[in-house]
């Protein structure tokens, strides 16, 4: 599904990703862990097409197509979804209107019929239940005045509505209490299917108790320095990142 080869990216003059190799097959859950500044959020944003980053080398193939050639909206239409670490507030656009616009734009791009507001509300109803959100939230402006937990839930709601093939969760666990974390994880798990993949970017192992990964990768200084199974996350939790990034840590 996703093949990342030798991916390099910069922001301004600074190189953040220094050659990433990662392959994700359908149905797999990959966790990308690493200390602050390791480049894990950059990887997530580059995959979604954030304009602040410049790809300077390597390739990313998504379902056999060159992902890096696509505009962000095309990536989304093809099934890539990024749950933002800091969801953006858009005062003046209601959540419902935004979601329906996104839903219909994606359907249109796939040659499917647009859904009218009434039918869309039916779709929303079950999705709202999944993330334990009240329909009152639909009439509020996107993320505006939402608490940290509500913003993250809203990201998962969007994901549930758009049903991406590849979901990238960028530190979705940051700032969440344990109840919110569970709701978010339940939402993600409910969407797991053999043809859908997930990349979970996280600093802590905590979220991985709820979203159990097939593979864990440790990113340090713009490279994947270690990969393993889910037990690697527990080991990291116990021993800290210095255990795998020691060389870089000492040099810094």
């Amino acid at each position, binding site marked *: 599904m996703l093949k990342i080869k030798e991916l390099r990216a910069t922001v301004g003059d600074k190189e953040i990703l220094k050659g990433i190799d990662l392959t994700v097959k359908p149905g797999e859950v990959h966790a990308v862990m690493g200390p602050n500044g390791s480049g894990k959020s950059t990887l997530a944003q580059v995959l979604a097409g954030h304009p602040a980053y410049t790809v300077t080398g390597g390739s990313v193939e998504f379902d056999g197509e060159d992902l890096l050639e696509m505009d962000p*909206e095309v990536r989304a239409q093809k099934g890539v979804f990024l749950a933002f670490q800091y969801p953006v507030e858009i005062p003046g656009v209601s959540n419902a*209107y935004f979601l329906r616009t996104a839903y219909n734009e994606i359907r249109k791009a796939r040659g499917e019929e647009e859904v009218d507001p009434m039918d869309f509300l039916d779709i929303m109803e079950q999705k709202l239940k999944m993330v334990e959100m009240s329909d009152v939230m639909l009439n509020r402006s996107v993320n505006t005045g939402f608490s940290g937990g509500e913003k993250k839930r809203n990201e998962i709601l969007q994901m549930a509505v758009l049903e991406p093939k590849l979901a990238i969760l960028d530190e979705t666990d940051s700032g969440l209490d344990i109840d919110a974390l569970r709701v978010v994880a339940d939402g993600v798990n409910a969407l797991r299917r053999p043809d859908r993949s997930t990349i979970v970017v996280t600093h802590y192992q905590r979220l991985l108790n709820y979203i159990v990964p097939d593979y864990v990768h440790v990113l340090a200084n713009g490279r994947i320095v270690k990969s393993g199974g889910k037990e690697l996350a527990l080991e990291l939790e116990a021993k800290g990142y210095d255990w795998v990034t020691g060389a870089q840590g000492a040099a810094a």
Partner: protein
Amino acid sequence: MSTTAFLDDVRAATERDGEPRWLRDLRARGAERFAAVGFPTTRDEDWKYTSAAPIAELDVRAISEPGGEVTRASIAPYSFGQDGWTTLVFVNGRYDADLSTAGVASAGVRVLSLEQAREEMGDLLRDTLGSICDVEQNAFIALNTALFTDGAVIHLAKDAVATAPIHLLFVSDAAAAKGASHPRVLVVAERNSKATVIESYVATSEAVYFTNAVTEVSLGDGATVTHYKIQRESPRAFHVGTIDARQGRDSHFVSFSFATGAALSRTNVWTILGGEGCGATLNGLYMADGSQHVDHQTRIEHQKENCYSREVYRGVLDDTAHGVFNGKVYVHPEAQKTDGKQENHTLLLSPRAVIDTKPQLEIFADDVKCTHGATVGRIDNTSLFYMKSRGVGALRARQLLTYAFAADVLEQIELDAVRESLEELTLARFTGATTAE
């Protein structure tokens, strides 16, 4: 600078027969003042960013013959879909009784054309007209005072509540071409009364004409007046309008100014919080493109203790449009515990669009809380990326973000029919769509 046509009008007006002595005197004062000062120049601080020269050079005469082809059908798009409202319709500055509707009557609420008011409320007019908007304040007020022929008078008796909004609809059609009108509106809200007044300026043609409106609002103790001004003049028209309020103790004045029309427009919204415990809320939205020039000047004068003022103006400017916002807040030494907040945010859609924004706080009391903030920006790239990352195309994302920027301040409008109508108008302007939710 040629002001000849206007001076000819002024001369004619002072010779007008059949008006009571007090009105002739009032007009004479306006005429004298205008003849003495003429139109402002950009050397005037208040006119630094807006040149009145195009208005001065207009060869327009006051429209003397009522006329026009305005019908119920042609004004329907501007009535907010409401039949129950008291609506006074003015065609090219003249009251049109046939197009007007009485609407739902409320006890103690009188809505009259200026001419009717002269017959039925002569004393009120004599005592109030010109007492708020004095001819000394500026040349346009002086000109209006010398020349006004029609307009509306709204009187709210003590404790009276207007259950339905009152709509004053000023329509200009092709017959307004090369003409000037000087509408005058007076709102007198006695103690504890309440009303919502909408003043619309719309056009059914693209004629060049000049509107010079003056609205005086007197709020007695505990009165609440909500005033919406909808300026959708012809794209080639010139519009100058002043709304000036005087507030008694515990009164509330709420104003919203929506401006999308006219080649050049200048709207003044002024209020004096003259009693303790008053509140003033002055909001607005201006949207301009092409080579339009849109200017708002607000002035909030805190004279007494424990009053608050809230102000949010937003603007969206495209092409080579030029916006001006000047927000003055003046706090007198005795106006302790004043709580004032002012914001002006402008979105520039084109590199050649310009905004001159000037918050102006003059505070002479020491125990007050006054803040102001002004931002000028372009579409936020983070928001744009967020929308795109959800599959929304770049163009549509821009349209929605532009709409959202503007609609943010429309949310402040309490009257559903007006808010929804302006939201639709704004959405259509930026996206071509007709409904939002």
